[in-house]
């Protein structure tokens, strides 16, 4: 039973990641391969605030979000001048630099040794110290994030993001401040990713940089490409599918030694097939052309 709850907790965490990346990719049309960097930055800022600075849980979440958002400006402001492939490259560059800092600045982050013993979330006298409790906590957090993102995307702001995605030049000619909008989208995505990071840290109770690599960014991207972009059901479906995938493989009795590889092969295949035949993903609204 705890195992099933574990899966659902991961679904909650990845749903927030997927929904937030969708703001960037599905709504603003910015293909960013740096989402894991913000996921990790959130996890580390949150954890380090609690453990090194003794800051209580809720303020540390705020700190993680704010830190992630501020760091997003470092990437968004310069890279918005880049077009197409160059923008993607820029985001990859940022991702790798961020990972390197987490990995190599051992004095701050303990690098590859990771940070163990992360306390469970604790606020208003309540401590989330069991798996079922964490499941409820993560579910509520995910629902809250989903509602916020829903309101944001179905608002005039969301409409503006879509317009920018569809034709940036036309949007500019209509008097819209496209650059500021994109920077905002980046910041929002980074902020939500940080929340996922804090959840992850509080659940696993241990973090190290290898959870926040470029391939992790690609994984999150795949979730929304496969599940679908441009609405809310796509990313959530993608998260559910991709997290259940390894379980399905386990059920099919694929030996553990190759299970990890098989899983990756399947999701690589799904990526190519979906982009070719179902560019809107399983349940998405937006076709990736």
């Amino acid at each position, binding site marked *: 039973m705890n195992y099933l709850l574990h899966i659902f907790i991961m679904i909650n965490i990845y749903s927030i990641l997927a929904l937030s990346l969708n703001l960037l990719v599905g709504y603003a049309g910015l293909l960013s391969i740096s989402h894991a960097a913000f996921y990790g930055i959130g996890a580390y800022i949150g954890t380090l605030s609690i453990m090194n600075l003794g800051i209580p849980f809720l303020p540390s979440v705020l700190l993680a979000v704010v830190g992630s958002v501020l760091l997003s400006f470092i990437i968004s402001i310069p890279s918005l001048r880049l077009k197409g492939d160059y923008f993607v490259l820029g985001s990859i560059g940022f991702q790798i630099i961020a990972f390197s800092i987490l990995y190599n600045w051992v004095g701050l982050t303990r690098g590859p040794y990771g940070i163990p013993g992360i306390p469970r979330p604790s606020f208003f006298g309540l401590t989330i110290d069991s798996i079922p409790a964490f499941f409820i906590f993560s579910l509520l957090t995910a629902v809250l994030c989903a509602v*916020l993102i829903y*309101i*944001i995307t179905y*608002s*005039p*702001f969301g*409409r*503006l993001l*879509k*317009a920018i995605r*569809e*034709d940036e*030049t*036309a*949007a*500019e*000619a*209509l*008097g*819209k*401040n*496209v650059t500021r*909008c994109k920077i*905002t989208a980046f910041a*929002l995505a980074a902020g939500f990713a940080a929340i996922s990071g804090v959840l992850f840290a509080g659940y696993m109770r241990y973090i190290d940089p290898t959870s926040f690599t470029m391939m992790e960014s690609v994984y999150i991207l795949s979730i929304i490409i496969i599940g679908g972009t*441009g609405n809310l059901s796509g990313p959530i479906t993608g998260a559910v599918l991709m997290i259940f995938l390894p379980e399905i493989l386990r059920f099919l009795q694929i030996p553990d030694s190759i299970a990890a590889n098989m899983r990756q092969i399947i999701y690589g295949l799904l990526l190519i097939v979906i982009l070719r035949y179902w560019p809107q993903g399983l349940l998405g*609204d*937006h*076709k990736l052309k």
Partner: protein
Amino acid sequence: MSILELVGVSKSFDGVKAVDSVSLDFSANKITALIGPNGAGKTTVFNLISGFLKPDEGYIRLKEKNLNGLTPFRIARAGIGRLFQDVRIFKEMTVLENVMAAFDNQVGEKWWVPLIEPFRVKKQEREFLQRADELLQFVGLLEKRDDFAESLSYGQQKLLSIARLLASDTEILLLDEPTAGVSPAMVPQILEVIISLRNRGKAVIIIEHNLNVVSEIGDWVFFMDEGQVTYFGLPADVLGNAEVRQAYIGL
């Protein structure tokens, strides 16, 4: 009473002067046509006015305000609207959403406002909805309101982009070949819209290859060739000019 003027504007690309010391002026309540053979620099002039290109020399003034160096969106906000030759509608959005997106000063476009002041946003959206429907009615697209923009015919998409332009309610309208590629049956509809825009006091500037359209609705014509303005005046005069006719037939 010119509302928009270009004075001595030049723009070169890789050493070729696409626009050479051009001076133009446009007034409200007037349809001014910019004509000339392909490559004369007309679209470049539009790009310069709307801020997608920066002039190498000269300046562009909107009612005494110098536009040089402003970004496109600021120029648009200053009151210059642009219709592109390639329609540039928002394909995966509905006709209604296309128009709604174009309105100015939307409080809901700041991301936090829908979260903390949802009623204020909803109220404004209702107002915009009404105006949008009126605009769609005006261009004759009201029944297509909930269809996706990409399902419209080319001519309808052009009308949609005009409706969108109207939603942004600018005093000056740059229309780049508004009738090009549109089926002949729809042209009168578009011309009617353009004329009524002028009658509402807008300064309408069109780039047009169809000389019939120019003589029918133009109030004033500038003829450009090889980056320079060589003739200007009333449509009858400019179009009757031998050298202008030569430039077109000689194509």
